[in-house]
């Protein structure tokens, strides 16, 4: 007999905290940047996290790294985001930063600059509370 193997769906990630689980699939530097941002509000660190989230949910691999794209790059027309992928980004971002984003707000976000500015404002508003 070969050794017993676990059936695939046995969930080994269950022991992680919710926050660790959210960050688990992002690059290590994005996780570190997130903690830096949470501790000191570093806007450069926030940028790193946002690009990592976008890279994780983008439907098709972009031709060049997102961080090298100009701020005017459009999420839908240039990067190929669809409404489903944007919804995923919104839910993930809400959970990670503890913010709330309304549908009518996200519709206004069209470019990379829009998204960065929007999340920054939301997070600042959260900090002010």
């Amino acid at each position, binding site marked *: 007999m070969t050794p017993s193997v676990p*059936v695939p769906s046995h969930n080994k990630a269950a022991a992680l905290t919710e926050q660790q689980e959210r960050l688990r*699939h992002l690059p290590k530097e994005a996780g570190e940047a997130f903690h830096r941002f949470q501790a000191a509000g570093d806007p450069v660190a926030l940028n790193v996290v946002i690009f990592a989230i976008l890279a994780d949910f983008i439907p098709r691999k972009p031709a060049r790294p997102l961080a090298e794209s100009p701020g005017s790059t459009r999420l839908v027309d240039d990067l190929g985001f669809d409404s489903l992928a944007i919804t995923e980004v919104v839910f993930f971002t809400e959970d990670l930063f503890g913010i709330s984003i309304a549908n009518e707000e996200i519709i206004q976000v069209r470019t990379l600059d829009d998204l960065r500015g929007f999340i920054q404002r939301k997070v600042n508003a959260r900090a002010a509370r």
Partner: protein
Amino acid sequence: MSRLPVITGLGFITSIGHDRPTVLRSLRELRHGFEPVEFLGNPNLPVKVAGTVKGFAFPTPNWRDWSWPAQFSVDRELIRGLAPHGVYALCALQQALADAGLEAAALTDGTTGLFCASAGSPFLLGHFLNQMHATRGERGNPMGIVSSIAGTLNFNLAAHYKISGAVCGFVSACASSSHALGYAMDEIRLGRQQRMLVVGAEDMTDESIMPFASLRALSNNPDPATASRPFDRRRDGFVGTGGAVALVVEDAALAKQRGAHLYAELIGWGQAGDGHSVAASHPEGAGLREAMRRTLADARVNATDIGYVNAHATSTPAGDRSEALALHAVFTANGAKPRVSSTKALTGHGLSLAGAMEAAFCALAVEEGFIPGAAHLEELDPVCIGLDLPCTSLDEAPGLVLNNSSGFGGSNVCHIMRRPA
């Protein structure tokens, strides 16, 4: 002019192989695909064997944690809407299309349809519903529905391949993909489509297999070499498996015109209900008996013309007995004695996948001129006396081949295929 459906492409992601040569060798040499497994992390469970799908891993519901053999490619855009069996199905369909010599661009003009069968993904559906309850409805995965409900295969594959012909899913449990193939034959015969893609698939997870333990339908035999033994007196239930099989079915005239390789002609199919029980098969196999008769009539052949029957037999005490009685009624009583075997002895029972998987095995048998043996059969159930169950695979052309499938509620479906003229 009558139109004849022919099989021109096959793709396999199964417990006995992920490509045609490996599957063929497993069938010829009776190599099974079973491994010891521990369901639900619980060593106390009596069910200890499964037909594992090697090289694929789905350790969590998050697709970022999934992996598959390097020879297959799964687009990022597609995988977010897939269940584990959707990944299997994509890999099987990629193979089948390449085998048929078809580019994806050839599928989009409305002359190609897609019929699929799976039970959906209880693994993902359970996860998404738990998440919904945990967040009291405030969070959900936007792809939760399309990746997990029955129909997920046709939703995803039709969109990905831009299929604008007939698109449908079939849900008759273990007869599902046999229904898909039968109705695909009709689409060709009626001239509605020139080509049909038929895909059967199932997850291979705790959630897809263990619920059958509640029905007392699974084998408790811990030995992978004997746990699945259809028609053996000591059989005690089926062994679960997952995977995917894809078939390309085309109008023979058009397939020949484009120079396609023909595996087998599909010359008839039929179905009949048991009208008996929600879960148990009719004790004398009444529905299966009638389905076989209707299929013979549809193909305009006699019982004595059939050379090989790929039985549905899953290795459950009651189900195999019903099928043996149905086979006696259709064949033995009419002086016919085709070879009979159930390849579930090697693969395990693939549920919605089973019919398409076994149709593809039959196509290989027809093409290669061999008959898969009745693996693991050592002590013949007395009810089978008079049936010809060869214990090894035979190097003989099977002639006409009958493929049987039966599902919950007493749905019985059969197909007949033969070597192309």
